[in-house]
């Protein structure tokens, strides 16, 4: 009797988890916007043998957004997944990998991300702040006020806004706008910027200082602003089109990432 075909690879098998780890590292390594994503679940795995020691692996992955900005040097293992009540963002990714002589590399990936529904959150936590659009007027006002406030008090370089990561609004018991945004250091000090802010340019890449700020604007009963910025001081290539942290579909091209 012919030999039985090998049992299909399970989603929780070590080989699947190893491939998923390579895929998640590739996705985070090639995304320059938003936040790092962590694996939540391996939805499906299919292996298509190509020959001896040569397999093509198709993975369907469920990812969850972490609190680590994509520019942060913090390793993914130390990044906390954003909790359900913090209005989590989920990523659905299809990844094609190749396992050649034991080395796994990503050939292509496609990701689609979406925020959890506001209804789900309000059902569990009626007063929790909810995500709003990044170009919401109150979010833009809060980011501008927070960055101006920080630049007016800092003794370090003048910071420029790179992108807004998140904006949430809470309506009860008080009206609070919470924002998170990425910043880049410029070639001016905060004092010099007061004289001629137009002359302040982002530092060249090899000297770039990137950072991340959180800010909250409490409007009622009294207006109160709080901002905190942390600079990273590491080199990052120029941001490009990948928008995994923003709802929509993101495509990535073949890569030669190996582990």
């Amino acid at each position: 009797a012919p030999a039985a075909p090998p049992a299909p690879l399970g989603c929780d098998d070590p080989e699947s988890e190893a491939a998923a780890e390579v895929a998640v590292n590739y996705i985070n390594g090639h995304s320059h916007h938003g936040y790092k994503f962590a694996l939540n679940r391996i939805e499906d795995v299919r292996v298509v043998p190509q020959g001896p020691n040569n397999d093509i692996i198709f993975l369907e992955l469920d990812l969850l957004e972490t609190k680590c900005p994509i520019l942060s040097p913090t390793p993914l293992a130390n990044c906390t997944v954003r909790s359900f009540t913090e209005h989590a963002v989920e990523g659905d990714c299809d990844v094609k990998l190749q396992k050649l002589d034991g080395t796994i590399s990503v050939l292509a990936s496609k990701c689609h991300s979406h925020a959890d529904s506001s209804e789900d959150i309000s059902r569990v936590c009626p007063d929790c702040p909810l995500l709003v659009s990044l170009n919401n007027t109150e979010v833009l006002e809060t980011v501008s006020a927070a960055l101006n406030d920080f630049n007016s008090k800092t003794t370090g370089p003048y910071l420029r806004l790179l992108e807004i990561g998140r904006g949430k609004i809470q309506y009860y018991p008080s009206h609070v706008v919470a924002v998170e945004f990425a910043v880049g250091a410029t070639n001016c000090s905060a004092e010099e910027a007061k004289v001629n802010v137009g002359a302040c340019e982002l530092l060249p890449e090899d000297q770039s200082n990137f950072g991340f700020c959180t800010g909250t604007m409490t409007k009622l009963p009294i207006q109160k602003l709080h901002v905190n910025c942390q600079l990273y001081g590491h080199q990052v290539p120029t941001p490009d089109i990948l928008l995994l942290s923003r709802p929509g579909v993101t495509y990535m091209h073949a890569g030669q990432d190996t582990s």
Partner: protein
Amino acid sequence: PVTKRAVAEAAQHDKVPRPVGFVPPPPPCPGKIRHFDI
């Protein structure tokens, strides 16, 4: 009709009562949830 005995035996095997505490293997996919499901 002619039936192959080996198939019949396998069918019989399925009807064998499982031992107490037998836990069927988990389905290969989808895998476990590491954080929470949204």
